[in-house]
Every structure is written in structure tokens, then in C-alpha cells.
């Protein structure tokens, strides 16, 4: 085969150099743009993560706050928010403001970061949300609050109506389900009397005695035996009323739930945590009952909105205390910086009693993961501005009465770090305390 031998010369040196130079220029421009885009995208991710986390946590809490209720419409849901309760004769605090570690039962575990109850400067809140609420009439007369197990008969017939001889079994099973029986105890329940006075109640496994579907005259269908006033059961903060007025109702389907923010020692990330149950300063230190809900949540702040429009715990000067509130809150409990809870019955209530709260304004501050080196170039992490002029978001912002942590070495500067921070706030009416308005 004949092959042409002409025109087989390659590029001249000049041509090759020009070609390579142009190629390098094109690739340099392309790569620069590519890397910039990658850095922008990464920066955007760090920018968005705390916003998403804060909004997500806010939405999560909003569900519980908006629906908070103990299904006690007579007294306008007096125990929907819980700041105090009684256990074994001691008044325990269930909600806290700006943890310091100095609270009874609490202590700092990591200096400047966390305490046994939660992270320094964060709040703890306990409330009641009805998840499947129902009221069942207790047969009169109510046995009273003296010591010892009491027999309580309840009008509960959900499982009745089946074949004779088996419906009692079904009815008891249904009653156990309705009371949240977990094999050892029922969920925490409540009694409410005709005047709206209330108490806590819990049924042990041995307390589910019998069902009697055949009783269609007095409707004493379920018999339970349990101590009503027990050393191991919570009681209203003042111990409760001396006696209930019939008729009394057994309230089921309530979820007592506590929220806090605590840095997880496993991965050193601050997390929103929740516990199904009342916050117990004797066991939740940190205890094992709180579970993680969301990570990178570093602050929970709660301000209390009262029915007269006042908002408390939103600034240092407006934080609940005897000094700040004067005659509106004039008992020692006010100095714990959360609304006092006098309890049911004809007790003297402070004006700032928790039963007067009709809304919560809560703020969640979240942070990004530690900003990568590439993304740091696009954000001024080495800022040295003082707090009053800074536009940086690389420090935890002030939230309600939780001020910014200042740099101890440069007191006018906030304590800058390598995270993006974002605060989301939600104002929520306690819907069930506004009924009829």
C-alpha cells in the first residue's frame, strides 16, 4: 500500500508552546471556577445546617407546646406546664432557667460547657402533651388519700360486648392499653375531680385486679388497687388537696415530657434531648432516661408569656425573681428563675404562678459542624471585632436572658469559634389554655 510521506511534520516548538499555554490557561480558569464553586457549595452547606437544625428543633417543640394540656378544662389546664412537683415529701424542680451547676443536685461536669442537668446557660422545660387523651369516671365515693392501697373502680367498657366469659379478658387488656401499661407499671396518669383539683396516679402490674363487664347498672367495670399517695409516685407540688369531690375522673393518654440541651460526652456534640416523664433532679444527673433528639442544638431558651401580656425570662432584668418581680412573685421559689407552681387547692398563688402562663416564646440555637479549611476562606473566621460591631456569626448569639459568652482574654469580644450559629424563635400560645376566648 502506498502511503503519502508529505505533510507529516509535527508542530513547531512555537506552535506546541502556544497550544500548551492556551491549554493551561483554559484549565486554570476552569479549575479555579470549579474549586471556587466547590468551596461556595461547602460554605453554603455550613451556612444552612444550623438554620435547618434550629428550625427543625423549633418545629419539633412547637407540637408539644401548642398542644400542652392536662385535659383539665375546669381549671384551664393547670398542670400543662410543670415547674415543680412533689416526690416523697420533697418539692422537686422540673423546669430550669439558665443552668449554672449550682442548682440543688446539679454540678458542673465540664467547666464552661456542661452540667449534670444540661449545658451551662440552657433551660430545661417539662410539660404535658395529650397524645391519646381520655377520661374515665371513677365510681363514687373516691377512696381518699390516706396511706395504703385503695380500691378504685372505673367505668371502662371498651372491651366489653364480646362473647360472655372472654369480654372481661378483652376489657382488661384494653384498659391496660389505655393506661399505657408497659409490663411493670402504667404510664403516669392523673385524677381530676369535679372542681378541677388534680393529682398524679400510677398503677403497678399487681394493681390491675379484675374486669366486670356484667355490671351495667353502676358501671364499676374495672377494679384496680394502688396507693394513691405513695413515696414513689409524684404528687402535686403542695402535696395536693386533702380530698377529692366526686365525681372524679381518671385521665389517661397524657405524655409527660421534658426537654434539655446537653453535650454528649460520646461525640462531644451538643444535642436536644427529651425524656418521657417528669424531669427528676435526683436521677436525671445526667441519668439514662434522656434520649437524643437532634444534634448540634446548643441552646434552648424559654420565655414565659402571661395572660396580661407580660413576658418573663426574656432579659436579665425581666428574669423571674423576688427582686425583679416584687409583689408579683414574692416567695422563695421565685428565685429559682422559673414560674412558681403552688399546686391545686385553695392555695395562695403568686401573680407569676405557672398557671397564668398562656404562651411560651422559645428559642433554639443550633450550630454547624466545624467549618472545613476550604470553607473558612470564604468566611471571616479570624474576625477580631468587638461584640457591638461584629457581623460575624462565629459565636453563639444571645438568646432571651442567656447572654453571649465573652472572650476572657479580650473581654469586649464574643468568644469566637469555628462554627456557624443560628437562632430560631417561635412564639406559641398554649392553645388549650385559651379555650373559650
Amino acid at each position, binding site marked *: *500500500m*502506498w*502511503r*503519502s510521506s508529505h*505533510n*507529516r511534520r*509535527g*508542530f513547531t516548538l512555537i*506552535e506546541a508552546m*502556544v*497550544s500548551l499555554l*492556551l*491549554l493551561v490557561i*483554559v484549565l486554570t*480558569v*476552569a479549575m479555579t*471556577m*470549579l474549586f471556587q*464553586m466547590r468551596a*461556595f*457549595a461547602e460554605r*453554603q452547606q455550613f*451556612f*444552612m445546617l444550623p*438554620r435547618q437544625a434550629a*428550625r427543625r428543633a423549633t418545629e419539633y417543640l412547637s407540637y408539644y407546646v401548642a398542644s400542652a394540656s392536662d385535659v383539665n378544662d375546669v381549671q384551664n389546664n393547670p398542670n400543662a406546664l410543670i415547674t415543680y412537683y412533689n416526690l416523697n415529701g420533697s418539692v422537686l424542680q422540673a423546669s430550669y432557667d439558665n443552668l449554672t451547676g449550682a442548682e440543688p443536685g446539679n454540678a458542673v461536669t465540664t467547666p464552661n460547657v456542661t452540667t449534670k442537668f444540661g449545658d451551662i446557660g440552657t433551660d430545661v422545660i417539662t410539660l404535658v402533651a395529650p397524645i391519646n387523651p381520655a377520661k374515665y369516671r371513677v365510681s363514687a365515693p373516691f377512696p381518699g388519700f390516706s396511706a395504703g392501697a385503695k380500691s378504685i373502680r372505673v367505668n371502662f367498657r371498651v372491651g366489653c360486648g364480646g362473647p360472655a366469659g372472654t369480654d372481661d379478658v378483652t376489657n382488661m387488656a384494653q384498659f391496660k392499653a389505655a393506661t399505657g401499661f408497659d409490663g411493670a407499671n402504667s404510664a403516669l396518669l392523673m385524677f381530676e375531680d369535679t372542681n378541677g383539683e388534680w393529682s398524679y396516679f400510677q398503677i403497678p402490674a399487681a394493681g390491675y385486679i379484675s374486669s366486670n363487664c356484667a355490671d351495667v347498672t353502676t358501671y364499676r367495670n374495672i377494679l384496680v388497687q394502688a396507693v394513691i399517695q405513695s413515696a414513689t409516685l409524684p404528687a402535686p407540688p403542695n402535696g395536693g388537696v386533702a380530698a377529692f369531690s366526686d365525681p372524679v375522673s381518671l385521665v389517661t393518654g397524657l405524655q409527660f415530657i421534658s426537654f434539655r440541651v446537653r453535650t454528649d460526652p460520646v461525640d462531644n456534640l451538643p444535642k436536644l434531648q427529651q425524656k418521657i416523664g417528669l424531669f427528676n433532679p435526683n436521677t436525671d444527673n445526667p441519668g439514662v432516661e434522656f434520649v437524643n433528639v437532634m444534634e448540634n442544638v446548643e441552646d434552648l431558651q424559654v420565655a414565659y*408569656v402571661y*395572660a*396580661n*401580656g407580660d*413576658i418573663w425570662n*426574656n*432579659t436579665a432584668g425581666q428574669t423571674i425573681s423576688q427582686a425583679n418581680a416584687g409583689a408579683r412573685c414574692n416567695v422563695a421559689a421565685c428565685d429559682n428563675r422559673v414560674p412558681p407552681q403552688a399546686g391545686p387547692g385553695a392555695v395562695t398563688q403568686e401573680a407569676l404562678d405557672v398557671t397564668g402562663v*398562656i*404562651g411560651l*416564646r422559645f*428559642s433554639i440555637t443550633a450550630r454547624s459542624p466545624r467549618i472545613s479549611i476550604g470553607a473558612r476562606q470564604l468566611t471571616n473566621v479570624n474576625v477580631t471585632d468587638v461584640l457591638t460591631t461584629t457581623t460575624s456569626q462565629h459565636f453563639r*448569639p*444571645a438568646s432571651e436572658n442567656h447572654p453571649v459568652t465573652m472572650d476572657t482574654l479580650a473581654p469586649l469580644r464574643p468568644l469566637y469559634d469555628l462554627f456557624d450559629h443560628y*437562632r*430560631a*424563635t*417561635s*412564639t*406559641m*400560645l398554649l392553645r388549650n389554655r*385559651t379555650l373559650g*376566648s
Partner: protein
Amino acid sequence: MKRTTRGSSFIEVLLAMTIMALVLVGILQMFSVSLIINKGSAARTQMLFKCQQVVENVRLFYHLTRQGSTTPPAITESGHVGGTAMTIPGALPDVLGDVSKSFLPYNQAESAATWGYWGPAGANVMEQENGPYKISYTIRRDGPPNPCGPSGCQNMWVITVSATPTDVATATRYFGVDLKSGKRVDYVAQFP
């Protein structure tokens, strides 16, 4: 068969590189477009959240009014420019079809009193002075044609909260999102 075995000419190489550069620029432009779209979504998500918070706060004023309680002092100031001045919550429109419009303060200078409530030290709906969005809301009296029956009058108000990217040139602004971009968010809710 006669075949040409010569290589590419210099002109051909230049042409090829030009085409490659154009393609690369096109591909890289897709990154920047997606970044802008991403920023726009983030902006709208934030504005939607803020609109929801406005509704929750107005629900609070509404409740306080019906209780006969005083509202937070900053809230009783009349509305700002651009619509019928409205005192919150005292002047919910009481005629069917009436509309009241209010603007949230954009900075402290515009309204020091209301800024205290809506600003970062308060409800935190406006996160910063001269921020990237502006918020206004209208409340319209609505209801059935014959709203009063045996159980009373069925009053109903519909609130529409609107958030738009700022049009202030010197303000903190969303990247790639301005008033002309159409990134307005409306949120509608109802009062009983």
C-alpha cells in the same frame, strides 16, 4: 486507498481548545446557576418560617385582646406606611370584606417601639436591622353572608403574611435574590 496521515494543524488545535473552553464554561455555569437556585430556596424557606412566626404572634395579640388584657406595649403602635393604619390588636377589621395592612419594622429607626418586640431581642422575626427581607401582613374580615346564628356571630379573619427580599441597596441581601427575582412568600392563616 489513499489516506492522509498528517496530524492536526495549529488552527485545528486552537479551534478544538476554543470549543473545549466554551463547553467548560457552560458546564461550570451550571454550578453557579444551581448555587443561585439553592440560595433562592434557602431564602424562601427562611421567609416562610418568618411568616409562620408572624401568624403565631398575631394569634397571641388576638387572644390577649379577647381577654381584655394589655398587649405587649410595642404592639399597640399603628401600622406604618403603605396601607390603612392598623392598631394591633385593637382594630381587627369589623366590616365584612374590610382589609387592614401592617408592616413590620425594618429597623430601629423606623419604629423603635415595635422593633423591640419584633426584633432579635423580642420575637426575633426580624433578625437584624436592614436585613435581607421585609414583612407585611393584611387581615381581612371574612365570613359567611349571614354570619350570625343561634350560636352567635361566626366572625372570621384571614391573615396573609407576605415576605419579600429587601429592595434597599445598602441592606444585607440574599445572594442572587432580589425583589425582581419573584422570590416573594405568602402565608395564609385564619382566625376563628
